[in-house]
């Protein structure tokens, strides 16, 4: 089929991805793009253990992902591409072109301000998201399929926080 979802989620592979999105989208494979995980057998085994046996997981660096993504898009199966941070997704968008980016979870951390129940951003990350949008990707926040997508402008304004 193709890659159905391009998601930024700092928890990477977890319940919302594997079950929350994986089941309704009938996902066959996940492309996890993270330079640290792609070079750690232990981390890969950790994430693989949380995934049902019928679901394939591919671990790639950002550089390798840009080369491999056309193949995944032509794949007859249904997949999700996952990054743990905005910068990695930016490289994917710049390198391969992506129509829509889903912000699934960026949690609290130093210098970040809460924008949504599950999204906290630093000023630099806000700018990175604006850049993603300027490069042609429709950016929305949506943690699970049943939730209403929040447009980037509303997200950055914190309009949905109250």
């Amino acid at each position, binding site marked *: 089929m193709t890659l159905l979802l391009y998601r930024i989620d700092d928890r990477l592979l977890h319940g919302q991805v594997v079950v929350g999105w994986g089941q309704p989208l009938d996902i066959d494979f996940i492309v996890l793009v993270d330079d640290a995980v792609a070079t750690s057998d232990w981390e890969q085994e*950790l994430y693989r253990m949380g995934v049902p046996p019928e679901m394939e997981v591919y671990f790639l660096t950002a550089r390798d992902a840009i080369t491999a993504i056309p193949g995944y898009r032509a794949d007859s199966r249904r997949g999700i591409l996952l990054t743990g941070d905005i910068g990695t997704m930016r490289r994917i968008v710049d390198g391969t072109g992506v129509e829509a980016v889903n912000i699934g979870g960026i949690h609290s951390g130093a210098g970040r301000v809460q924008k949504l129940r599950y999204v906290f951003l630093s000023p630099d990350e806000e700018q990175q998201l604006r850049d993603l949008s300027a490069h042609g990707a429709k950016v929305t926040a949506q943690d699970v399929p049943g939730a209403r997508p929040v447009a980037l402008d509303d997200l950055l304004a914190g309009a949905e926080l109250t």
Partner: protein
Amino acid sequence: MSDTSTEHTDLPRAIVAGHGDFANGLVSAVQQITGRGEQLIGVSVAKLCVEDIENLLRQKMFESSVRVIFTDLQAGSCTMAARRILRGMDDAVLVAGANLPMLLDFVFAEGRNAPQAARHAAERGRIAISAHGAGA
């Protein structure tokens, strides 16, 4: 009126962690049924990034000297964090897929050390699941 109270520990013996209010809900249920909820430390991780989940669980483990963690989902962030913490710890146990029957068995198994009790409880929790009614 006879005294029906029994001696039991009120020291924490395990951490329960998971999505939403899963952990505190289970601990509350254990307390309501047995009065032994003090053995369990409920940990909610909403809003936390992966590193903070790991730091919080590690802090709870070490400040209470607990060596058992129950989590809700194999693929969950708490499970991932717990596996990182337990890496290289031979005296600790993680049980993913926790349920109420499992925790009830655990809090009554005071004769065993906590990791042994957790392994026993995992089996009890597994066999406590059943389906009834149409659709067979």
